[in-house]
């Protein structure tokens, strides 16, 4: 399980490391070629946009892992340690629920697209390849938030042990 999670962690990194430089390469070369009248690279804009969508959704899960998404902690912090731990658990479950909802409805969108394929205007690739990024991102949200709740349960056991 740990190994699998570590692999998924690396998948996110690989996607960022592939998409970001490619985006830059496409946009920069299209800019240079247009500025110096070498002709325009028609597909560069679309390709870089789709790469950006993959970049954005693949990176969301990483943000949960490092607790980097902004939230308001000032109310929660007012409670006792014990209540805070329960609230932390509730929080993880709510985030997982969001991940489940987005995954489910994105899956439904993708299925409609597969049966009724819509192709992108300039590259001619199926649009659901890009929608897949949202599914990927939302499944990662579920995994990361379950990891968070698992950690909070383990901490609780640890804390009780410490009290003994």
């Amino acid at each position: 399980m740990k190994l699998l999670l570590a692999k998924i962690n690396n998948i996110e990194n690989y996607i960022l490391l592939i998409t970001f430089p490619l985006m830059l390469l496409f946009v920069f070369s299209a800019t240079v070629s247009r500025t110096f009248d070498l002709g325009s690279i028609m597909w560069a804009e679309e390709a870089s946009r789709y790469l950006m969508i993959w970049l954005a959704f693949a990176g969301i899960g990483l943000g949960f892992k490092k607790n980097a998404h902004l939230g308001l902690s000032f109310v929660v912090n007012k409670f006792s340690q014990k209540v805070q731990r329960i609230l932390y658990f509730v929080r993880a479950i709510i985030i997982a629920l969001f991940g489940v909802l987005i995954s489910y409805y994105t899956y439904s969108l993708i299925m409609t697209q597969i049966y009724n394929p819509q192709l992108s205007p300039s590259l001619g690739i199926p649009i659901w390849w890009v929608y897949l990024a949202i599914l990927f991102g939302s499944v990662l949200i579920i995994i990361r938030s379950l990891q968070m709740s698992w950690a909070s349960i383990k901490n609780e056991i640890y804390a009780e042990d410490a009290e003994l």
Partner: protein
Amino acid sequence: MTITLLLGSLVILLLLNIPIAVSLGLATFIAIVGGGLSIPLEVIPQRMFTSIDSFPFMAIPFFMLAGSIMQSGGISKRLINFAKNLVGALPGGLGIIAVFSSGFFGAISGSNAATVSAIGKIMIPSMEKEKYGKAYASALVAASGTLGVVVPPSVPMITYGVISGVSISALFLAGIIPAVLMMIALCLIIMFIAKRDNLPRGRVSFVELIKSFADAILSLLMPVIILGGIYGGFFTPTEAAAVACVYALIITIFVYREIKVKDLYEIVLGSGQTTAIVFFVIATSSAFSWLLTAERIPETISNAILSISDNPILILLLINLLLLVLGVFLETNAIILLVTPVLLPIAAQIGFDPLVLGIIMIVNTSIGMITPPMALNIFVASGISHASIEDISKKVVPFFIALVAVVILITYVPDIILFLPNLFAK
């Protein structure tokens, strides 16, 4: 009914410390299901997709990458060194250096947090050495960090430009004079406190000034290339941002020689992740905002505001208050996405330029970042100095008041904002 569910669930989720992006998305689900609306729920992922499927938005990751490359390339110490030789001899020298270097750094990075972290890491320890209190030094850097999004390039300006249709390059130009006013306001407070507390001045030499300028010039040229390129009609903002990345790579790898190719791995991962965080907020805010518009809620709110009064002075005051309060609780990009549809019609009604509205929104929400509880700049500064959030918040009050004075000034004398865009439009 729908609006009660939407806002009610949003507030509860936010108070439970659910990340802002998730709260906005879930509140949208709850309102559609609970309000019994005949809207298929697939619309939510679909809005999330279409909102970020935008070429102008691509300027955000590119500017973040460029800023991050420059920061790893040792740019902050060069900018600070230049600022030190430029303004270090003034009373409260170190504080003023922090303000100027934040302004310079804001011209390379598009975000407040990045500015506070880049400048704070160097300036907070050196202020502590010169008997500035830990909390005061942190408050000073946090307040200077508000320049990050007002000095172009700026992430929220890109967001506002995409949402409102106002030209991003006009917004970039329009931010310059308000940023200068903010710098002056901050420096006045710093000088006053320095005189009162008898804080030391620095010494500068002309030779050092020239030397440090030569060392910093390549970095200071970056914003010139960005703005010049956009205004000369060579690039769109997104293209300019891509060019900025390549420029940053060239000078940090070949001229400054402070980053190696393998450092790029961490830089790309870091700015990729920050991009994802910003886009996640933009994506779910767009779904939320789409539902608001579908239910004609912005129209209702703007009519309600206009029915209170049609006095522009009063309405502008209300707008500023609303933005300041929202800035205390929400993330900047979320505020822009949610509030722009409400404020644009009001602005049109009272004959207020959408460009001016955008700058006022950005300055207000930036000040929101030094007002607790959602005071990102203070969090970052506190992370560096280990002074408590409460202590920093107390010391930030005079800076807050000075910055609010600037907001009031630019709200009621909008020609200050329009001066540069008008000058270059001709």
